[in-house]
């Protein structure tokens, strides 16, 4: 008897064909669907993006933040800035927004990384508030009233929505594959080690602060992409909405209920949340109360989330961990 260490389970072999089929399906979908449904899909993609990014930060990186709306806001405002004020095309503006957000995240990380644990969480929240306060002061970005996106003025509604749909789909694929590859890389291993025990990881030669800073910056870029997609769908950016802490509540709910620390969990959670939102939207503030209660129950009773409950940790479609199985020799 000897132990065999594998990364994949037998379910993994289904992943690639199924993933490709779903992708092709989602790619041809807009030509079959009314655009009110396409917009709903964009919402779902945005949910998957922000949940996957928060999960990368907290579930894999061990950095619990309640201030990632800072980067959603930076992404949304940068998109408006680069399209309307600088005259760039939507795609160029989006790339600029993502890069800008990453650049902003570097100095910000030096501020919040002085804080640990719960105080890190509030620290990120303060950053989001500060960035909002600064943007409200900038008159060319509309101040407190917000600013409308004019880049689409000449494009028809159907074409616009189809373009946003395809952009959102592309970003989701990049984010999911990127997270998957990152977690299988050396950095992913370092992050997992840091999350489990930062001191021990450090003594084993992991550069703890560099690894965490890298993930913080990468995640900031992902949130900026989500933010620019939100701006492209809503066609308007308002400081109080785009920097709302409710975004944090939503992404945390999705990840916690779906399954923290897995790639599948946030996707499952996002789909669940998407349908929950459709049903509960009319109830206003009650719906956030229900989310809070469900999140508490989930943390206490099912800490591995829905994905963990369903699969009992034995199945992995996007294998980032190692499985040990006993194998008889000869």
């Amino acid at each position: 008897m000897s132990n065999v260490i594998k990364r994949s389970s037998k379910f993994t072999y289904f992943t690639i064909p199924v993933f490709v089929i779903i992708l092709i399906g989602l790619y041809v979908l807009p030509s079959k669907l009314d655009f009110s449904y396409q917009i709903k899909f964009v919402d779902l993609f945005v949910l998957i993006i922000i949940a996957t990014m928060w999960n990368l930060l907290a579930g894999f990186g061990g950095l619990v933040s309640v201030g990632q709306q800072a980067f959603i806001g930076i992404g949304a405002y940068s998109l408006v800035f680069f399209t309307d004020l600088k005259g760039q095309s939507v795609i160029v503006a989006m790339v600029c927004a993502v890069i800008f957000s990453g650049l902003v995240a570097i100095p910000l990380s030096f501020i919040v990384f002085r804080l640990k644990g719960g105080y890190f969480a509030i620290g990120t929240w303060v950053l989001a508030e500060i960035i909002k306060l600064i943007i409200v002061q900038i008159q060319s970005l509309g101040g407190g009233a917000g600013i409308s996106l004019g880049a689409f003025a000449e494009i028809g509604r159907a074409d616009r929505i189809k373009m946003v749909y395809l952009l959102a789909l592309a970003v989701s694929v990049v984010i999911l594959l990127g997270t998957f590859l990152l977690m299988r890389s050396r950095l992913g291993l370092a992050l997992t080690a840091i999350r489990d025990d930062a001191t021990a990881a450090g003594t084993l030669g992991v550069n703890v602060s560099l690894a965490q800073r890298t993930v913080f910056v990468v995640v900031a870029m992902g949130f900026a992409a989500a933010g620019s997609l939100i701006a492209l769908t809503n066609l308007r950016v308002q400081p109080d909405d785009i920097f709302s802490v409710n975004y944090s509540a939503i992404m945390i709910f999705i990840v916690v209920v779906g399954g923290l620390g897995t790639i599948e969990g946030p996707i499952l959670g996002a789909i669940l949340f998407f349908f929950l939102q459709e049903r509960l939207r009319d109830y206003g503030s009650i719906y956030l109360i229900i989310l809070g209660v469900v999140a508490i129950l989930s943390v206490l009773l099912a800490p591995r989330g829905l994905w963990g409950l369903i699969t009992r940790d034995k199945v992995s479609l996007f294998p980032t961990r190692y499985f040990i199985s006993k194998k008889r020799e000869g």
Partner: protein
Amino acid sequence: MIWTNAILQGLLVGGLYALLASGLSLVFGVMRIVNLGHGDFSILAAYLVLIVAGHSNLWLGTIAVLPIMALLGYALQRSLLNRALSLGVLSPLLITFAFSIILQNALLKIFSSDTRSIQTESLGSASLKITESISVGYLPLITFFVGVILTLTLHVFLTRTQLGRAMRATSDDPTAAELIGINNRHIYGLATGIGLFAAGIAGILFGMRTQFSPSLGPVALIFAFEAVIIGGLGSLWGTLVGGIVLGIGQSIGAQINPAFGVLAGHLVFITILLFKPQGLLSKQRGT
């Protein structure tokens, strides 16, 4: 002269921030939990006073609400947070964040987003004239002294009483504390109870001073947190100093430009975090 006035008013507001922060600081000191719902709990207390005082006397209302807050804290700790603590560092954080979201939206549902204030009749407007151009309100003055008294009381409680010593023992080493017969779960419950009691005092005084609405919870949490960090983790007196420094920073900022007050406070916080991350008063014995 306007600067002297700004500093004086800032100092008095600082007393309120210190009050808000002391509960946060104590709970963190004892069990390393940061209660992300702390600000919302203090706003809850202000609304509770509004309900109780609507039927009877204001001071009676205050006296009735504070024990409710303490009981609520004890109950939440014993029922949910102790369990979460055993699941790792992430769980308590997620649960207190859920508290924040639930409370804020429940208050929004019940009381709407309209601003309210606790009417204090003559006390709200009465002030003490120091010179021709400087006068201080009685209410800010009372708030400041309540802040100082609460810090002093907590200090005496933690250093001079049996229970306070047990709390510090649990904070230093929960396993060893358990070995010598301390019931950690009870101690944690008491800490959160005291934390919400203090949050309640702060919220009620806050509601008497200015208008409030359900969305102010996160703001209160952020100011409390900045006071804790400016003062230095684990130091009650540091928290008082931190609150005062934050209050003065905001007040001077607002004097320069009314829209700049809160931002100036944040800048003070960031400056301290970058150049003196251990806080103005570094950790001392006591908490």
